[in-house]
């Protein structure tokens, strides 16, 4: 097992540096720098622009800048934001927790609703549950996040006036739990609905597949109760694809949701990345990339470990079994 983990880790490291190199390269190749945004709002001269480019090393070749950035990264320093002049780590630290709260709540809600619904839909095909599951999937896949957000705001904030339309806490308050929950309901609902479709679909198809397995027929033949067959055999047997889908949401939880955060003024990672790209804040974009890349790679590693733990053929390589 240790050898397996070591092998997986060794493949993760070059992938991580490859990701950073590609993102850095694309930022460099992409049109515009923060210096191009100067003057849009003020009287800046050539000298101001040159001073900014020198200070941010934008006048240096891309390989030089990448090596310098990498050197700082290896010392645990993500650098300074071009826009705010403050530490990138500090910016990210302020945004990770709100993203975890928003997307985490949305995804957890989606799991709690989608998994039982998917199971019920598979258990009773063409029933009301099945139709509800199809409706949820269609709504989730078919309605864009921004439209759903605006629709919910229109209904619950503008028309009924029962829920806030923006921010994480009521301004001027210290931020209590009930206040947070009130502000969380609409954006988390959007994240929940957007995530549900895939989970319902995946759970339903995995359960349907498991229902046809020999060991489930054996369980029935043994005279086990319906609930016992469903939970102990069908659900457990369908767990791997469902867990895979759930774990694949982890990077999304850390990375935040750009649309929902922007519409609801939620201070998360998605909106941070959005404004960093818009303002060509390369250091901040790279910092967020590092966090998201590490999360994605960490999740993949975790998935590999889970597979390896559950299925020895994966751990030792299929040909050896």
């Amino acid at each position, binding site marked *: 097992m240790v050898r397996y983990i070591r092998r997986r880790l060794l493949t993760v490291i070059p992938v991580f540096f490859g990701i950073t190199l590609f993102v850095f390269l694309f930022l460099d190749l*992409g*049109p*515009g*720098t*923060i*210096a*191009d*945004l100067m003057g*849009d*709002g*003020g*009287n*800046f*001269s*050539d*000298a*101001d622009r*040159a*001073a*900014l480019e020198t*200070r*941010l090393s934008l006048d240096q070749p891309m390989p030089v800048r990448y090596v310098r950035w990498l050197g700082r990264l290896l010392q645990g320093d993500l650098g300074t*934001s071009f*826009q*705010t*002049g*403050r530490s990138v780590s500090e*910016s990210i*630290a*302020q*945004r990770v*927790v*709100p993203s975890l*709260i928003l997307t985490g709540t949305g995804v957890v809600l989606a799991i709690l609703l989608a998994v039982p619904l998917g199971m019920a839909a598979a258990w009773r095909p063409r029933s009301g549950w099945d139709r509800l599951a199809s409706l949820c999937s269609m709504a989730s896949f078919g309605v864009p996040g921004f439209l759903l957000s*605006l629709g919910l*705001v*229109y209904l619950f*904030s*503008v028309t009924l*006036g029962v829920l*806030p*339309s*923006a*921010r994480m806490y009521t*301004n*001027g*308050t210290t*931020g209590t*739990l009930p206040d*947070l*929950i009130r502000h969380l309901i609409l954006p988390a609902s959007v994240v929940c609905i957007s995530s549900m479709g895939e989970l319902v679909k995946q759970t339903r198809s995995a359960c349907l597949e498991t229902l046809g397995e020999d060991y489930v027929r054996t369980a029935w033949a043994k005279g086990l109760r319906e609930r016992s067959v469903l939970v102990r055999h069908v659900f457990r047997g369908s767990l791997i694809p469902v867990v895979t889908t759930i774990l694949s949401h982890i990077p999304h939880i850390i990375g935040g949701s750009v649309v929902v955060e922007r*519409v*609801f*003024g939620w*201070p998360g990672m998605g*909106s*941070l990345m959005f*404004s960093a790209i*818009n*303002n060509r804040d390369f250091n901040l974009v790279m910092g967020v990339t590092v966090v998201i890349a590490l999360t994605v790679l960490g999740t993949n590693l975790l998935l590999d470990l889970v597979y390896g733990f559950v299925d020895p053929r994966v751990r030792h390589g299929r040909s050896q079994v």
Partner: protein
Amino acid sequence: MKKLVALTLSLALAGALAACAPKQTQTPTPAGSDSPSGASPAPASQQPVVINYGISNPWDSLMPYNSPSGSNYSRMVYDKLYDRLAYVHADGALTPRGAVSWESADGGLAVLFHLDANAAFHDGTPVTAQHWADTIIRMTDPDCPTLGRSAFAVLAGTDGTGAAVEGETLGAQAVDELTLKLTFKAVTTPEDFLIDKNREYYVLPTHLMADTPAANTMEMDLWSAPVGSGPCRFESEVMGSTITLSANAGYQLGAPGFDRLVITVMDKSSLLTALIAGDLDYYAIGGSVAADSVSAASDAGLTVLEGTVPNTFYELMLNNETISDPRVRRAMELALDKELLAQQSVGSYGCVTGTSVLPDCASYAGDYNVSYDLEGAKALLEQAGYDGTTYRLACASNRAGLAALMQQQFQEAGIPITIDTVDSATMFSGMADGTYDMGIASHTPSALPLWFVESRFTEKNNIFHVQDLSAYETLIQAVKDAPDPTARQAAVQALEDYLAQERPFVPLWFGTALHVQSPTVSNIDYTSASFSNENVWEWVKQ
């Protein structure tokens, strides 16, 4: 047992959520202040009066001389934290702020600013002329990594970049405790200086910076919890998302009528909705609202007012290298039905123009507008031997409709164009490197005649790709050197004549924005937002 487990898990989840409350940067309690904000705290039983202010783009560093974009969004935040010399109204009128009065000196080469004796920093230290002088001395120090230093290039003793020249006397001196003298390279009236530069001159708490070398100015911890002398004090910040300010009860022009001002970054499309829902009281800049949203805003009980002075200038940038014949560029202007374009873009709140000079400007030399003339455009194109080249037009996504209308009008004149919908940085860099032949842009105009032209016809900022800049440079310099208003108007006219003949860019219209605000706040002088200042000390939250 299961219920107990469920209850325990619910409590654990609630605890985890509570622990996840965001950590914000807190202001250290200033010496001599009883409360962290220093503002009159609301009684424990009473909720603080909060103005919720929306903004669609984040601000930069909280150090005003370290702003890479120099955007109005950043300036709106600086305007609250730091004090400026004067308050500039939308029509260019000036009223006191950090200075109570000003006068010309040394035959017009200098201006004396008499500072307000009641002005004080948020830590209680009185603002003196020495603070102003020291701020300018530090920001013009070549070792200090100041951004936007060219704002100081008008002062004597600086070079073209605004850096102090060794051996020369810098034109910023404290005559006495409350008199600041700024000396210029050329004759400058106080009005011209303040209209042009007021939003770029802030007084910093130099008494807290004395031990820091100029080179390390921007790295000071002070900028994560700044101490200014503006109408609001810093409380906390989630960078790029929310900044919480408290009212400076001791502000020399009066205490704001609220306890806190919370500025939140939100998507532009959500601002009006949040205002209607009661989650915002006001939004920058000037609370402008699109003409087609007026009825929704009015129906929701919001106040909608029409601006009194133009606050937006729209232009069609042209690449003079790829569209090299001035006759083709003039034909393009004739081919555009500006009235129709303005109607599509800003409804009936646009005034078409052929110049970037505001009609209110003292040197205004006429509107130079040419009427829509399709046949005239075709004739000019034929005369120029236009070969039917297809041009690329860049625009931001919110102007895609305007671009499509332009495409149709150009097509009618026989000029095919393709449209690239991009973000601002891509458009400006694409115009600068010649990727695009045209671009639609808008700017906040100023009452000075050269506000637009001066910075766009230089060798390094030649965004219109003009092959020979010498004629423009000569004409611009003539405006700057004009000794009196009459001469200046004549010089502006000569410049405008040349621009109309060469047409390096197509001026489209001045927009007069509609303003929307919640009835929960009053006394907002919203039109002055075009000069990046707001009279927050007069705002009252009901």
